[in-house]
């Protein structure tokens, strides 16, 4: 069911979800089509787009987001330029971190993503710290920390949770549980908007569990496009989806589900969504091209950025 939010907002959310999907498909193609371009293993946000986009839509540019090894979607959701995200993933000078971070640690301080940790649970306490800073500074900023269900196995989760509650920090723990059902974008947006408002009013911290259904391409350390690129028409034509992955695309894919609901209940035409997808694909293709054409960092710059104030 579609929540009561404006058509414009709904299409904006769908657009960003599609952008993440198309950008991540490029990441997988980088790995499949170019020898040695993606170095080591990587993770994609396919299947979780509804969570990142809906949460970030509920935030302001001043709010902080802390992310994980599965960060690409979060950065785009917070307003990141897909070209600079893809460039960082393949270690280019034009990337958000000038090629220092790579796929695992894309941070974008200008967007409020001041640090990203690929250590499971690595950002939980840091996020509580950013929220503590906002409290001391008497700023209205809210901090959201994304993490997976695995992070709750780490001790730091309990330490951060305890102190966040003791000190009543303006913090939302956003657990993306990627093992079960589908997070609906509208529901997540409404929930997070309400919690962000209450957190800003000093009622925090809060804990949110967003459930997602694992995308079949996520098996192993190197995600694969097991059904090729997503076809937007699968949203209303499940029979066209390859048999092996039909149940996920028909019942588990947050992008296709949202597109289908917009057509069914939101007064949005199929052609409108097809056009939106075509525009997003074009932009994502350009972003991939930008990344591929971008230069690697100058080798001699390897020793830069160990310490602030010592660049020269």
């Amino acid at each position, binding site marked *: 069911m579609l929540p009561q939010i404006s058509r414009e907002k709904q299409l904006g959310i769908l657009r960003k979800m599609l952008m993440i999907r198309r950008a991540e498909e490029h990441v997988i193609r980088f790995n499949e089509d170019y020898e040695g371009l993606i170095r080591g293993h990587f993770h994609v946000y396919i299947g979780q787009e509804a969570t990142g986009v809906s949460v970030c839509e509920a935030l302001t540019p001043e709010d*902080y987001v802390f992310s994980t090894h599965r960060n690409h979607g979060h950065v785009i959701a917070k307003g990141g330029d897909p070209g600079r995200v893809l460039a960082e993933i393949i270690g280019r000078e034009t990337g958000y971190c000038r090629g220092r971070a790579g796929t695992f640690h894309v941070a974008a301080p200008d967007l409020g993503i001041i*640090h990203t940790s690929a250590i499971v649970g690595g950002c939980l*306490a840091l996020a509580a710290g950013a929220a503590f800073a906002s409290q001391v500074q008497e700023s209205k900023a809210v901090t959201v920390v994304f993490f997976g269900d695995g992070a709750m196995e780490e001790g730091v989760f309990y330490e951060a949770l305890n102190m966040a509650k003791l000190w009543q920090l303006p913090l939302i723990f956003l657990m993306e549980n990627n093992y079960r059902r589908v997070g609906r974008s509208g529901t997540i947006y409404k929930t997070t908007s309400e919690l962000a408002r209450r957190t800003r009013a000093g009622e925090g911290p809060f804990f949110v569990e967003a459930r997602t259904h694992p995308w079949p391409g996520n098996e192993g350390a190197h995600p694969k496009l097991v059904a090729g690129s997503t076809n937007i028409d699968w949203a209303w034509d499940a029979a066209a989806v390859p048999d092996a992955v039909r149940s996920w695309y028909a019942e588990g894919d947050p992008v296709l589900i949202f597109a289908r609901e917009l057509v069914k209940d939101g007064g949005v035409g199929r052609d409108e969504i097809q056009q939106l997808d075509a525009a997003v694909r074009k932009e994502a293709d350009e972003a991939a091209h930008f990344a591929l054409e971008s230069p690697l960092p100058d080798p001699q710059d390897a020793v830069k950025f160990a310490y602030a*104030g010592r660049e020269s």
Partner: protein
Amino acid sequence: MAQEMTIGEALVSALGEAMEQDRRVVLIGGGLVSSGPGQAQFARLRQKYSSRIKSPPIAELGFCGIAAGAAMAGLRPLVDIGTATFSYEAIPQIVNEAAIAYSNSGGQTNVPVTYFMRYGIRGGGGVQHSGSPQPWYWNTPGLQVAMPSSPADAKGLLRAALLRSQNPTIFFAHERLMDERGPVPDGAYEIPFGQAAVKHEGRDVTIIATGVQVPRSLAAAEGLAKEGISAEVVDPRTLEPLDKNTLLASVKKTGRVVVTDESHDNCSVAAGLAAIIADEAFASLRAPIKRVTIPHVPVPFAVSLEDYVTPTAERIAQAARALVR
């Protein structure tokens, strides 16, 4: 003019001034001092800045991370970890988050947090409360390491860390020095990181000493002087950044060097400094470089055993004597 105070009191004084001067300075942890007039001084700070002084639960991993995150978001936190070995609980946040954030972000995210810890053989600390992790932190790119040896240096360096630093800093004070008194200049002053101090001038042998080894080396130099050996004592004060010039100038003058730090010998601070000297002042050396450190064994409890592993003034003097003769 100068006032006599302990390192603990000097640190509380630096903290108070920094909190007064800069609203971004906050404290997470205990009060830096466990006894003496510093406690009353700290109690006044706590009352004045209640929202900026946090007493955390016993959760080093959590609160060291909170401090780093707060620094990323614009505060300048001081964390009092207490005994240095407690920082081992927080290594993931200090080494794998705070230290790397600036580099990872391509020079965008500053982490001006200061982790204060008391290190070393305190007397009866046994295997778990006698730790000297300065070599670990010195081996971690992204971290600055300060090791003041006197109340005056402690105050000036802490002010510099809290008010000027753009990077995460590990700030060590030796347990046995915390209550030693010394003159502290009046007024606000800072000691910039990366400036070594010649604590005692000499001609025959250079003793490069850190933290608690500085007063021990000064005692050794006094004894050596009676034997006609003139020892120069140089204190780097910060290991990162390191004032190589002052160290090397002294080595070039004397041609003989003892390096001493109260940490285990393998890959130690003394070993690192010795390597730099061998590399950059080899032609000036008239004798091998000697290290006075803790042997490679967990620090034992019994007083006889503990004394045996402690790098005392006598061991420093012996090493210097052997070089000159």
